[in-house]
């Protein structure tokens, strides 16, 4: 509250003393609410009770953000409310909370950019540090403290910060201090044929160790990276080493043994008009980094300092989102579930047929994607130490081959065909130990068509099919959407799991209204339980039924 008054005071003072009283106010309001309803038929087997709405059947997450800019100063805050409980599947630290969650004051002048309060930040790929917000996932890992950015010349950028990380409405126990330096070598050397940038980061967590003198108070990570581009080729590499630290599971230390961690990511690509390719390799060994050593592996992704997303294609259809990958950076020494990290690749190809060619005349665009992720090939010993291969032949966690063909048949009709073949480890998708429960092999087909009816009206239809012998067997799905104009839209969708033990329809229907700064959407139906993934990070949502509403206004 003190900070808040200071910010207001400052903003007011600026307003009075300024020559031109022209500040600008911007921000937004977002409210996502749900009203959960009993649904006794929503169950996979006859012995289950179905979905029984919790006591807090009506829930809402609301975010009110205000920013005020005046010349070189910007101040802002975000008020959040999760009343009476946060939406189903969010971290319980948010339940029944209501208040100012973040605030900041920023000053920008020429080469200097200073922020006090809460701020978001990313170093390099985010593999070493990333403070970010995703409201759908219930993640807000902003840092609270002070940050300075300084660009002494056009080709050097420096960032330094110190602060604690946000954890619900509280702050992490650990204090983070971090530096990042980026140099654009080609700009400095005036190279014209080669584009070369290098960078390095240092991130340290200080945390009191109480009476246990065997564990470190400071754990630092160091990274170096290089990005280049030359003509139609480009690429990059980043390597990170993390100091030895203890590992923890479910809020307790596993032992006092210390393990260091490493991360390596490299990518290469080639692209020209009409054709694009890229490939990425990543290896993570004991590479989770939290602002509290005991927060390791918490299922709500709170207090994560760095960002290790799953490097697989992010899918958007109902049935392509059932079996998804989640990155596995952790070291676990439990005899029932031993693992040291992950290694794998992802590659992409995008191609447009030239307009003159036969396939080009119907606007054919092709996208193909491949990914393979495996556990590190490690041998564990009785004293909880381990040996690990750089790549080796670890358990396969996930393999995905998918292609997408888009066509524009005429000015009014276009189509998308998607084929996907997945092999997923049951532990990754359904939970439990990895590499020992067997695989789920699934093939998915999706056909989508959109027909424009003129005057902004259009109709879109999607047919989907998922075939698998494992888990809940086969699914089919359909979506119909009708757009009255750019403002009004309605849809109905169903995903039908007909091959499994319980035959369940996951039906949904809803509509949305969008105009200028306002968007309102309503939805009624069943939510399939499982992982909801955004940006390669997932949260678990239990099966449920009910109404949901989303209101978003920006100003």
């Amino acid at each position, binding site marked *: *509250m003190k900070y808040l008054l200071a910010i207001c005071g400052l*903003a*007011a003072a600026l*307003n009075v003393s300024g020559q031109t009283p022209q*500040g*600008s*106010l*911007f*921000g*937004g309001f977002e409210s996502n609410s749900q009203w959960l309803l009993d649904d006794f038929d929503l169950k996979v087997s006859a012995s289950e009770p179905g979905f029984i709405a919790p006591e807090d059947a009506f829930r809402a997450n609301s975010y009110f*953000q*205000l*920013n*005020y800019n005046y010349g070189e100063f910007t101040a802002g805050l975000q008020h959040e409310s999760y009343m009476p409980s946060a939406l189903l599947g969010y971290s319980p630290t948010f339940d029944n909370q209501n208040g*100012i969650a973040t605030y900041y004051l920023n000053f920008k002048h020429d080469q200097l950019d200073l922020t006090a309060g809460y701020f*978001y*930040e990313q170093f390099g790929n985010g593999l070493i540090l*990333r403070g*970010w*917000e995703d409201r759908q996932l219930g993640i807000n890992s902003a840092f609270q403290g002070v940050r300075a950015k300084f*660009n002494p010349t056009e080709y050097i950028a420096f960032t330094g910060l110190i602060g604690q990380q946000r954890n619900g409405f509280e702050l992490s126990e650990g204090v983070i201090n971090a530096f990042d330096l980026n140099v*654009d070598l080609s700009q400095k050397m005036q190279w014209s044929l080669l584009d070369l940038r290098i960078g390095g980061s240092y991130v340290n967590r200080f945390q009191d160790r109480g009476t246990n003198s065997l564990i470190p108070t400071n754990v630092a990570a160091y990274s170096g990276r290089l990005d280049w581009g030359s003509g139609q080729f*480009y690429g990059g590499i980043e390597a990170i080493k993390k100091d030895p630290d203890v590992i923890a599971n479910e809020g307790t230390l596993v032992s006092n043994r210390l393990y260091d961690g490493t991360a390596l990511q490299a*990518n290469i*690509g080639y*692209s020209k008009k*009409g054709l*694009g390719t*890229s490939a990425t390799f990543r290896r993570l060994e004991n590479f989770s980094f939290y602002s509290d050593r005991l927060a390791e592996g918490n299922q709500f992704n709170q207090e994560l300092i760095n960002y290790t997303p*799953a*490097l697989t*294609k*992010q*899918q*958007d259809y109902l049935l392509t989102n059932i079996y998804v990958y989640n990155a596995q950076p952790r070291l676990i020494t439990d005899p029932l579930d031993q693992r040291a990290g992950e290694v794998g690749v992802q590659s*992409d190809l*995008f191609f*447009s047929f030239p307009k003159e060619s036969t396939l080009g005349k119907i*606007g054919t665009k092709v*996208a193909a994607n491949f990914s393979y992720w495996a556990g590190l090939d490690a041998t564990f010993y009785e004293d909880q130490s381990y040996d690990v291969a750089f790549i080796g032949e670890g358990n396969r966690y996930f393999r995905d081959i998918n292609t997408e063909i*888009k066509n*524009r048949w005429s000015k009014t009709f276009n189509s998308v065909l998607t084929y996907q073949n997945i092999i997923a480890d049951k532990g990754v998708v359904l939970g439990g130990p990895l590499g020992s429960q067997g695989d789920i092999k699934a093939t998915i087909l999706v056909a989508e068509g*959109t027909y*424009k009816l003129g005057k*902004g*009206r*259009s109709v*879109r239809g999607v047919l989907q099919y998922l075939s698998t012998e494992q888990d809940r067997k086969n699914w089919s799905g359909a979506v119909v959407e009708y*757009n009255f*104009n*750019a403002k009004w*839209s309605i849809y109905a969708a169903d995903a039908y799991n007909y091959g499994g033990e319980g035959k369940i329809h996951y039906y949904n229907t809803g509509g949305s209204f*969008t105009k*200028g*700064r306002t*968007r309102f959407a309503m939805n009624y139906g069943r939510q399939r339980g499982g992982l909801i993934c955004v*940006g*390669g990070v997932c949260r678990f949502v239990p099966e449920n039924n009910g109404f949901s509403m*989303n209101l978003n206004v*920006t100003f």
Partner: protein
Amino acid sequence: MKQLIILGFLLFSFGGNAQDLLPDVSLKTLEGTTTSLSEATASKSLVVISLWATWCVPCIKELDAISEVYQDWQDETEVSLIAISIDDARTVKRVKPMINGKGWDYTILLDTNNDVKRALGAATVPLTILVKDGVIVYRHSGYAPGAEDELYEQILANAK
């Protein structure tokens, strides 16, 4: 809640005009150099800014649809389009091959840690805004097939 109301009043009473000015946030070019929204739009009178992501199907549809008529739009109104990708570290490596594979002629900028998205208050993508001389004159979120025609009507009304 009380704090909030007081604060709201305070801020409004400053006489801050609602945000019609394009916020000046820094972002990156595909080559990795830093630029800003004002720098990117400085030389152009009429600019469409589209916030999109490689994983957002409606975004791709919108940009594909505009791509078909983009040349005509440019010839008739001198409008230009800046497509700002909000892809984060997970998918940002797919931006370059995708835009080339698609053959889009837009200026592409990267908003990897979503500073632009936050500054524009975009809860979802796509968000399409039309900027005339640094002032936001039209905004629309979401994409329904045919929405590009409405956008073009706005462009025509603001061209000249």
